[in-house]
């Protein structure tokens, strides 16, 4: 296990390994997304209150979950890079940031499109919306700091500190905002008893979530491979790879 972890830290090993996984991840993303969309948009029953407009959750909810998940990945990768000085962890953190920001924007946009017919307004200063917006600011701050520092190593470490500070702060921000104002509906999936959702609606949601996870994995691998080639352009193995 530790050997695998150490090997993963080598850019070359990561490059070859991710190259083998990439087609599988991409294929799974495509299959799951098609299946989830068809199930969610065609097979799943319409909601008794919201009609067909609820179907946007098949994009909105996975995107919102991913926006948090990616931040956690980013902060963990940052911590690994800071503690064990692993080059690959830095690359993973920096490549995750734009993806996470994209998921956050997607969640915000789909949410406001859904909010117009349901709440009668595109935007309300509700707790969840606000904390999602703040999460977007945190991502943008991370990317801004990374872009501002020339030296890649310093940038990665500085961003890791920022991401860790953000991780401590996200629960505080979330709860303070929640306590401040709430209109958004409560969580319907993550309950201890049965989910308050029809199984026929829940399954496509979970399929879409898996599809989003694999999409994240696919595009993360693509970005990381690209970044690795750029950073390691002076090494023998990259030159060999290019001239091949």
């Amino acid at each position, binding site marked *: 296990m530790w050997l695998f972890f150490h090997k993963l830290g080598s850019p070359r090993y990561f490059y070859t390994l991710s190259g083998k996984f990439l087609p599988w991840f991409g294929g799974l993303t495509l299959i799951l997304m098609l299946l989830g969309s068809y199930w969610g948009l065609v097979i799943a029953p319409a909601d008794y209150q919201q009609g067909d407009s609820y179907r946007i959750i098949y994009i909105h909810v996975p995107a919102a979950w991913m926006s948090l998940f990616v931040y956690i990945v980013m902060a963990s990768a940052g911590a690994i890079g800071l503690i064990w000085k692993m080059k690959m962890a830095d690359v993973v953190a920096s490549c995750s940031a734009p993806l996470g920001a994209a998921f956050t924007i997607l969640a915000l946009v789909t949410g406001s499109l859904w909010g117009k017919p349901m709440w009668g307004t595109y935007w309300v200063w509700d707790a969840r919306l606000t904390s999602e917006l703040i999460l977007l600011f945190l991502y943008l701050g991370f990317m801004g700091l990374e872009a501002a520092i020339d030296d890649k190593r310093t940038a990665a470490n500085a961003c890791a*500190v920022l991401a860790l500070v953000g991780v401590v702060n996200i629960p505080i921000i979330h709860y303070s905002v929640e306590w401040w104002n709430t209109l958004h509906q409560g969580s319907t999936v993550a309950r201890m008893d049965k989910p308050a959702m029809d199984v026929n609606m829940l399954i496509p949601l979970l399929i879409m979530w898996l599809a989003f996870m694999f999409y994240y994995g696919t595009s993360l691998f693509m970005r990381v491979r690209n970044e690795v080639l750029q950073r390691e352009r002076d090494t023998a193995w990259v030159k060999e790879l290019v001239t091949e």
Partner: protein
Amino acid sequence: MSEASSYNAFYTILKRDLILAFRTRTEMVNPLLFFIIVISLFPLAVSPDPKVLQSLAPGVIWVAALLATLLSLDSMFRSDFDDGALEQMLLSVHPVSVLVLGKVLAHWLVTGIPLLILAPLLAVLMHMPSDSIPALMATLALGGPILSLVGAIGVALTVGLRRGGVLLSLLILPLYIPVLIFAANAVSNAAAGLAIAGQLYFLGALLALALTLTPVATAAALRISLR
């Protein structure tokens, strides 16, 4: 022995920063003037109607305090970074977090306390009911140090950059949101005659958390910035 010397180091940094601040008094005054001017813009821009101002006052005063703090943060490490004193501090035998704490405390004494003293005056300008002025002072006393402590992380991360100022606001303002929410809410509640103990306890808890964790993060950030 080592504890005593760490305390001495803390005290020396504090004294040095206070003397430095006292010798550049005009720099110290600028954020305060900014604080006053921003607040006096609101009656001009929104409405001089006392009722409107009264409802805006807690938020406006707190946002202005936030921005004034943000403006003053840049000076926390800048001159020490430019003349190399910061590097010497990192090389010293004392824990960097202790030295950072000294600098942050000095920053709060120089900028936070004057804001605290000016606040009642501005509260009167904004037609706030006099009952809510003690609440405003209390939130500034508890929240002000948090602003300096959390801000120090951002300054430490951006101190080596040429154009750190705008970036600093992007990094720090989202982290200030909990303080803003609780403080402004406490002041509004006090104006409405409601209890504010809960908000003050929360601010106190945030202060304790910031006091213990942020000096470590700031020290780590300084080490990265000065590499």
